[in-house]
């Protein structure tokens, strides 16, 4: 007999509010559905009423964990419109901040994953090792989260040359701990028995659901914006894209841990480059011409995409955000079916879902409880028909 287990919107496990409906037959999950919208704040609309520089601070607040990725993708989009040359030193600083964010985001997920499977030791240790990264952010930007570094045409703040040795020391410390973490993850019997073979996302499913980031890379789909379309200083540094074949939760765990090691490598190279590369960090942009631009960046969770349309004024006419979790969260439709209820939570959490990033659309219901929606395909066909008739 099928029963429905509602989870949420406020439940003690995940921090964010979301509403899962698990349809179960005995112990087995038959179907899963998710309702979101609890975090919607209307960023795109607000962004269209703000100037470009103000918008950077707004898109930073789309999500507290990706607070470099969104502004970076946004400034890429605006720079795409106005074709501005970004100084090399600014590019290096952007890459440094972006990679530090990847370290802290992955460590955060590793900790939370440990918490989800009832292994709180992992949580406490991973978050303990995350603190030095936040300390580095404080050295670079003055704040632990929400750095406010990005500007159109560069970065807002230079890295002090005196602080580089200190940061290198912190990186040494992080690297030592991360090497230990890799060994722990590879050896730990609890993690292996709990995560291996759980919630497998097959390669074809990952491609069909358009999964991005570590979720795709753990299912043998090697996509990474940093390698595919290198921007900023990614063509100046040497790193590997981690791809694993199995697609289960354990592989997603290992991909993230190994990516931390790669990010530490990139950070070290960036600091080395910063020692020699001098020059300005901001190329001021006076005017933004009318046009369209897109910006992409590999956020910790996958590719984040921003689209900006301008009309020559100091505001965007249209600003569209596509966050990585938007593609990743529905993969639970493929990976959760047929597994026990106890594994469903860690499987849904294994894509590192960020509901704050995802919620970019609203469903409008009027007073009579009718949904207001427009069939885009129909609209498009009607327009073609109309043009044909007029011609």
């Amino acid at each position: 007999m099928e029963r429905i287990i509602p989870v949420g919107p406020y439940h003690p496990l995940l921090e964010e509010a979301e509403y899962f409906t698990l349809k179960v037959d005995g112990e087995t999950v038959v179907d899963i559905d998710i309702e979101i919208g609890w975090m919607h704040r209307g960023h795109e609309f607000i962004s269209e009423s703000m100037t470009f520089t103000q918008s950077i601070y707004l898109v930073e607040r789309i999500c507290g964990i990706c607070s470099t990725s969104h502004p970076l993708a946004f400034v890429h989009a605006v720079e795409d419109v106005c074709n501005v040359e970004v100084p090399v030193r600014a590019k290096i600083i952007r890459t440094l901040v972006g990679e530090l964010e990847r370290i802290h985001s992955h460590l955060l997920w590793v900790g939370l994953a440990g918490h989800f499977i009832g292994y709180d030791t992992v949580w406490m240790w991973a978050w303990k090792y995350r603190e030095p990264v936040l300390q580095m952010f404080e050295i670079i930007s003055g704040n632990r989260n929400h750095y406010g570094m990005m500007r159109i045409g560069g970065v807002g703040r230079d890295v002090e040359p005196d602080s580089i040795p200190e940061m290198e020391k912190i990186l040494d410390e992080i690297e030592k701990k991360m090497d230990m973490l890799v060994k722990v993850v590879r050896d730990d019997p609890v993690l292996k028995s709990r995560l291996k073979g759980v919630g497998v996302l097959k390669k074809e499913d990952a491609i069909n659901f358009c999964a991005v980031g570590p979720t795709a890379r753990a299912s043998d789909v090697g996509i990474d914006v940093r390698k595919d379309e290198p921007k900023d200083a990614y063509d100046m540094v040497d790193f590997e894209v981690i791809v694993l074949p199995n697609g289960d939760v354990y592989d997603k765990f290992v991909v993230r841990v190994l990516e931390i090691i790669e990010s530490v490598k990139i950070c070290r190279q960036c600091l080395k480059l910063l020692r020699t590369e001098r020059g300005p960090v901001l190329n001021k942009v006076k005017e933004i011409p009318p046009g369209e631009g897109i910006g992409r960046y590999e956020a910790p969770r996958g590719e984040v995409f921003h689209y900006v349309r301008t009309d020559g004024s100091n505001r965007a006419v249209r600003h569209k955000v596509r966050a990585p979790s938007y593609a990743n969260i529905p993969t639970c439709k493929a990976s959760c079916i047929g597994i026990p209820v106890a594994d469903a939570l860690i499987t849904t959490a294994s894509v590192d879902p960020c509901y704050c990033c995802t919620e970019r659309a609203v469903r409008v219901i009027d007073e009579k409880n009718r949904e207001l929606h427009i069939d885009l395909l129909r609209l498009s066909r009607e327009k073609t028909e109309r043009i044909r008739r007029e011609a």
Partner: protein
Amino acid sequence: MSWYTKKLAKSIWVFHVSASPCNNCDIEILDLLTPKYDLERFGIKLVGSIRHADVLLVTGILNKKVAPRVKYIYEQAPKPIFVVGVGSCPASGTVFKGGYNYPSKVLSEISFDIYIPGCPPKPEAMIEGIMKLVEVLNA
């Protein structure tokens, strides 16, 4: 009531509700539990249900979808409940104030006892905020 609040001030149990924030305050709240800050040494603990809690932590702007739920949680709480607004969002709305999903009514229906401003407030600031609440309870 004063004898009750004095007892309460010894170990505060906290329920955390994230009402459309950007996640950052929530992470910093969780950060308080981890080894560097370790708030549990003061007896402060995150609990899974509002029915066990003495303090309700609210982060975010309380958008229109979430606001009725937060109100429902607030009504379920055993009284007295102390409501703490973490971050600048519940205090002022910050950048989201111009948006269509920013509620004007609900924020006035839930009475906040203290606000901890900052975007996000540092963990030290949060500890100080809670300590101020304890001082008030002890007075």
